[in-house]
């Protein structure tokens, strides 16, 4: 089968590799019909997340048709022919974390848990195509994928709903939604959202779904800010204004009730501290650049909430802990507990509350994935979200 392989920093290649097979009783094999490039894949593309291995198959946002099911999967749960979306977190369903519905904290799905334990104390769940520290599972930017614990994760999608509407249930829609839920929104709240990429767009819309009165969206890419305005957000361009001053002005010296960092470890910014962050990241003395996180803590209202759906991989410097403590803030984070959100959000799509396909800017055959990574990373060609079609060839596109 064809698969997008990580061959090193800024080096993606499409290779012909063997088809996946059932390795464990609760596995299933999915024939992939749509698969996406995620903003978090760009952290891997840029080489900022440790424990990627040359030859790894990328991708954690995919959907398709079940073509094989292991003997440990009940046929009531999943059978050959089912059309499913696969969540990017892998969960066993039986450990205490899963039973507490903390699906992305599953104890039993990461075969390399020891690596994550060295870095984080305890290991989160395994993920598809996202470093060996988080499982080393082959990802879904391919024609087929093996899905472990297939009786827990995959969500069946009715025929009436197109791939383009359903595929984002694999990660970014639930991730944006959980980011908004973590803001503890009460009616009338004002929420500031840093980052208007695909997850940010879903986060903005989810804030409104959950009752926020105002959403202030922060980015610098004009088409992304425009997309945020279409959802009803007010926007700030951090290249043009001082964000802290602007937020102070807009909230009457109160600050937003909650601040959401949908940017993570590769934030952009200005000035000396940003330059030092970049230098430290280059030297690997600091893996992550926490510009947005610092701003979010400083901007947040007293007693407010900082929600962090953005990806951080290791350590950060100069966190304004004084502000965090003295203002009595709460921070809520986590990889998305996918299985909590997939079914309810599918129902919202079915009801017509939202059509997630609005984020798609590019649909290309899988052979063009390497170029698509570059386009997406550099935000060229108004690129907001890339969907790959594994079975189409370049000629047909």
């Amino acid at each position: 089968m064809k698969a997008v392989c990580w061959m090193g920093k800024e080096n993606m290649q499409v290779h012909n590799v063997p088809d996946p097979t059932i390795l464990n009783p609760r596995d299933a094999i999915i024939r992939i019909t749509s698969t996406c490039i995620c903003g978090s894949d760009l952290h891997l593309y840029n080489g900022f997340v440790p424990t990627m291995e040359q030859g790894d198959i990328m991708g954690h946002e995919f959907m398709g048709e079940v073509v094989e099911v292991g003997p440990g999967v009940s046929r009531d749960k999943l059978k050959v022919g089912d059309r499913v979306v696969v969540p990017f977190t892998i969960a066993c369903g039986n450990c205490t974390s899963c039973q507490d519905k903390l699906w992305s904290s599953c104890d039993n799905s990461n075969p390399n848990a020891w690596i994550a334990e060295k870095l984080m104390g305890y290991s989160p769940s395994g993920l598809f195509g996202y470093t060996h520290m988080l499982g080393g599972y082959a990802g879904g930017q391919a024609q087929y994928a093996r899905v472990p614990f297939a009786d827990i994760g995959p969500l069946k999608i009715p025929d009436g709903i197109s791939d383009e509407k359903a595929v984002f249930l694999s990660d970014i829609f639930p991730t944006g939604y959980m980011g908004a839920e973590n803001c503890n929104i009460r009616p009338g709240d004002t929420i500031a959202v840093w980052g208007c990429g695909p997850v940010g767009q879903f986060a903005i819309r989810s804030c409104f779904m959950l009752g926020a009165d105002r959403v202030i969206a922060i980015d610098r890419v004009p088409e992304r800010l425009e997309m945020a305005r279409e959802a009803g957000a007010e926007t700030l361009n951090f290249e043009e204004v001082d964000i802290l001053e602007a937020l102070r002005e807009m909230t009457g010296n109160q600050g937003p009730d909650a601040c959401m960092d949908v940017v993570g470890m590769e934030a952009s910014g200005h000035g000396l501290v940003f330059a030092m962050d970049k230098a430290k990241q280059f030297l690997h003395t600091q893996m992550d650049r926490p510009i947005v996180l610092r701003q979010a803590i400083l901007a947040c209202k007293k007693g407010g909430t900082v929600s962090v759906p953005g990806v951080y991989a290791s350590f950060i410097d100069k966190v304004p802990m004084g502000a965090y403590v003295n203002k009595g803030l709460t921070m809520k984070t986590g990889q998305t507990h996918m299985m909590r959100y997939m079914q309810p959000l599918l129902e919202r799509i079915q009801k017509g509350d939202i059509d997630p396909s609005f984020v798609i800017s590019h649909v290309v055959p899988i052979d063009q994935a390497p170029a698509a990574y570059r386009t997406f990373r550099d935000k060229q060609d108004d690129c907001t979200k890339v969907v790959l079609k594994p079975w189409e060839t370049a000629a047909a596109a």
Partner: protein
Amino acid sequence: MNSRNSSQASSERGLNDFLSSNSLLIGAAALMAFGITRRSKTSLALATAGGLLAANASRSRRQSNASHTRATFLVNSSPEKAYQLWRDFSNLARFMRHVKSVQVLDETNSEWVVLGPMEREIRWYAEIIDDVKNERISWRSQPDSLVQTSGSVEFQPHRAGRGTFVTATVRYTPGGALSKAIATMLGKHPQFMIREDLRRFKALLEAGETPTTLGQPHGPRGVHGSVEQVLFRETTNLAAPQAAHAYSKTA
């Protein structure tokens, strides 16, 4: 068991302490430095490995050169179910990575096949010497076996009903410092192995299977990828040379 070689053992222990502390730390630091100065994937892996080695080395300085090693996991299960899974020794090979098979001969006796250096099979007979239903099991190799080893496992219910603490202990004859350093690097250090075995026991008990990526497809690994696979301990599900070493030097 150590008394007859006590003087030799103590001098070797002195050497071990030196090697496992200072030079290992220096080597680990060198690996990290090398890795950090080169901004490539392999070097990052090397730096990570160096860091892990350093962590291990500094930890082994704090611990004595104990001849036994143990691990505890809280599992989401009753003591009864946990006990049952372990008590059937034919299950051991499903979660003990270096064990190829355990054949149950009768109520207390079993034949163990472990893969040693060059995937050579090492076999011994073990007997259960203590067996309290739903509480603990102890076993040891029979006195005339080539390999001298013993182990035990205890099942203790969580006081507030949140599962069962499973504590496994394995006694073995400690090896030299160099082999220990290599073993640590390759993930064959006894402390590492027992933790990982117990982690897999938990997965098998709770989820009915142990997670794996062995046999999944991947693109060309090249030199870098292959080195990283070893460092991330994903190359094989079978035992490597240090496995038998974990149990005895005499094998």
